[in-house]
């Protein structure tokens, strides 16, 4: 089932705003290949994706791209400039491109990225590409959502990038050195190898400008996917992704509960007692934990009901 463009974009917007993913759609997920593309700013990730789309479309695959850029910590706004390099695909019905701002989430992806990936997956896209900025140790979350992680670098980057690379290198399934035409790059490593037990990470030299190396990269992505399937790594990664998603949702839910609890009158009393040294912080935590867990049970019922109501409403308006 392919969702019509406008419906899909509206759903993505709602998910972006923190709405939970519709339950009935979840069982339609798990089919798309999820590809993460990350690397420091300016290496040419978007231009590379622009070229990849050409190749993949020639293979009659449908592609969705989530391009993530950082929200300004000062203004809360963002300049989303990745789409510019992929604009020529805007009218292709087999391509969907959406720009997202991190909205203060650190780690490279956004809070809602897993859910948005589900939406695109459920909509029937063959491949979902998640493009993120990755410079340091922090921005490696893309590995939690993707089956294959491509790290893109440029030759002759400065020292800071070399240091930061170490975090990126740990998550890279495929390493791409882009802008090979600008600099005198060494030839790529040979075709990627793997055994059932071990993946040998290839280094591929590309020029998004000239198109050089793109077919090789596509091939490497396909080979990696084959490796994931044969080695049963895919199931392991997907399990990790599920765990990461549920963990974050839990953390989010419980953080919200904590904040709510701290606003309540009972919390105020407890905190005053601690300040007066009548109670110590550990005791305060014991008492407040009981309150939070209790309130969670109440609120989870509320959320379940509200989701069912929303889903029913959407079913009615859909056709």
């Amino acid at each position, binding site marked *: 089932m392919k969702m019509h463009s406008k419906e899909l974009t509206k759903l993505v917007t709602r998910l972006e705003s923190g709405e939970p993913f519709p339950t009935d759609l979840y069982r339609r997920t798990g089919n798309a290949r999820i590809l993460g593309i990350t690397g420091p700013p300016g290496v040419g990730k978007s*231009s590379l994706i622009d070229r990849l789309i050409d190749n993949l479309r020639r293979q009659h695959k449908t592609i969705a791209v989530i391009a993530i850029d950082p929200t300004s910590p000062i203004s809360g706004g963002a*300049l989303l*400039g990745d789409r*510019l*390099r992929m604009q020529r695909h805007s009218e292709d019905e087999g391509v969907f491109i959406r720009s997202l701002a991190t909205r203060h989430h650190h780690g490279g992806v956004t809070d809602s990225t897993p859910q948005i990936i589900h939406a695109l997956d459920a909509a029937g896209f063959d491949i979902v590409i998640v493009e993120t900025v990755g410079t340091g140790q922090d921005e490696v979350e893309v590995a939690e959502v993707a089956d294959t992680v491509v790290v893109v670098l440029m030759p002759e980057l400065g020292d800071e990038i070399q240091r930061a690379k170490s975090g990126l290198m740990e998550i890279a399934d495929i390493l791409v050195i882009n802008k090979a035409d*600008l600099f005198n790059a060494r030839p790529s490593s040979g075709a990627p190898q793997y055994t059932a037990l071990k993946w040998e990470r290839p280094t591929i030299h590309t020029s998004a400008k000239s198109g050089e190396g793109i077919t090789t990269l596509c091939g490497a992505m396909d080979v990696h996917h084959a490796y994931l399937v044969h080695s049963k790594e895919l199931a392991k990664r997907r399990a990790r992704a599920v765990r990461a998603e549920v963990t974050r949702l839990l953390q989010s839910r419980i953080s919200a509960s904590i904040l709510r609890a701290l606003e309540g009158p009972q919390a105020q009393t407890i905190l005053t007692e601690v300040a007066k040294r009548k109670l110590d912080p550990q005791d305060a935590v014991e008492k407040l934990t009981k309150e939070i867990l209790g309130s969670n049970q109440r609120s989870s019922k509320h959320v379940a009901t509200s989701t069912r109501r929303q889903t029913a409403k959407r079913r009615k308006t859909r056709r």
Partner: protein
Amino acid sequence: MKPEIEQPGKFPFTRGIHATMYRGKLWTMRQYAGFGTAKETNKRYRYLLGQGQTGLSMAFDLPTQIGYDSDDSMALGEVGRVGVAISSLADMEQVFTGIPLDKVSTSMTINATAGILLALYLAVAEKQNVPWSKVSGTVQNDILKEYIARGTYIFPPKPSLRLIADIVEFCAKEVPGWNTISVGGYHMREAGCTAAQEIAFTLADGITYVQTCVERGLNVDDFAPRLAFFFNCHSNFFEEIAKFRAARRLWAHIMRDRFGAKNERSMMLRFHTQTAGSTLTAQQPDNNVVRTTLEALAAVLGGTQSLHTNAKDEAIALPTEESALLALRTQQIIAYESGVTAEPDPLGGSPYIESLTDQLAQQAREYLNKIDNLGGMLKAIESGYVYKEIYHAAYEHQKAVERKEKIIVGVNECVSDKKLKIQMQKIDPQLEPRRRHDLAALRKKRNAAKVTRCLATLEKAAQGTENLMPIIVDCVRNYVTVGEICKVLRGTFGEHRANHSI
């Protein structure tokens, strides 16, 4: 770096490239014009030449600049808007009817399609029986700034530089009076860069072109005397004068020390100036006449070889006949009545001007070093460095204006209540349909077999390394259109795709 005593006409030419400057010969008064049809352009040129303008300057519409014929779907809504639509030799012949090409000098603001427009001009000269050795003019032919500040690129950088070198090489032999590249800082300044950046980015582009031609095997002294530059003249009066002086000093050293030029004429920075369009306001447009006058004066005191003064309505559209005339008169009054032409570099020696010159030269040198460290201007552009510098500067300027740290009379201070309406040149709505009709007729009339042969020859040559100019000239002689030539070249060279990051 600065020698003890600098003299006009002597290396490093800080004080001017000629010993007597305007005492010997005035700057060329060259007003940019051209719009709508070839016929209207011809009429306006003959008017301006009759009024005392001494050189022609051609503006082309965007489809012509980007290699599309007037009947191409990409040209919709754009034909004849910002300049004249030229799709074939028939159009070019019409523009120059009654204008002998051995008696005028024509500057063409054309970049990606410079080779084709030059070929068209040469074909017109042939038809007038004017030998190419008698033809003089300029093509802007400066693709690097297009990628970052003006946007009329077609092909990627490598084939674009090949075309530029083809033109330089061809003209060195066949059209010795032609200025083959006008390296522009005007547009980058309009896009928002600072005075020091304008110097640095312009000279860095120039360095890239010289480097390309030298790598082609050309001797620097064989073509460098024909390189020209195109600067902005902005509102900070003394800074602009100092800017021109600093640019001359730096270029002289670059040519002699970096490229080993021996001929002094290779070291002279010759330039055309346009007063800054971005300083003109739509509010209280008469103020623009004053702005343009001050800017023109700064350009003259800065030693420009050629000057375009903006008309007061140039902020809104292509100027009317009246306002275009006043812009020309502005230059004429400065030239004939003000007395500033009596001495070359009259402000030279002023402590303020000399210190500003030194400062700007130093700042520009720092940018040039940065660009060298990035691997040259081409890599600096492709890395996004230049783009970021320009548009961040533009944003800072806007913030300064909105915070009233920078005052613009009539806009954020001295505002008047009345809103003034500007008279605009209207473009005939029948223009596009007529162009479509004319092109269809042309394609029927011409020799189709010759056209096919020419395009096949062009394609083969483009895939190789031979100089494309003679082939392009042959194409246009046979009424192959601009769009048809570019379609072949696009197929061979590919198209440049914007990849800016801010």
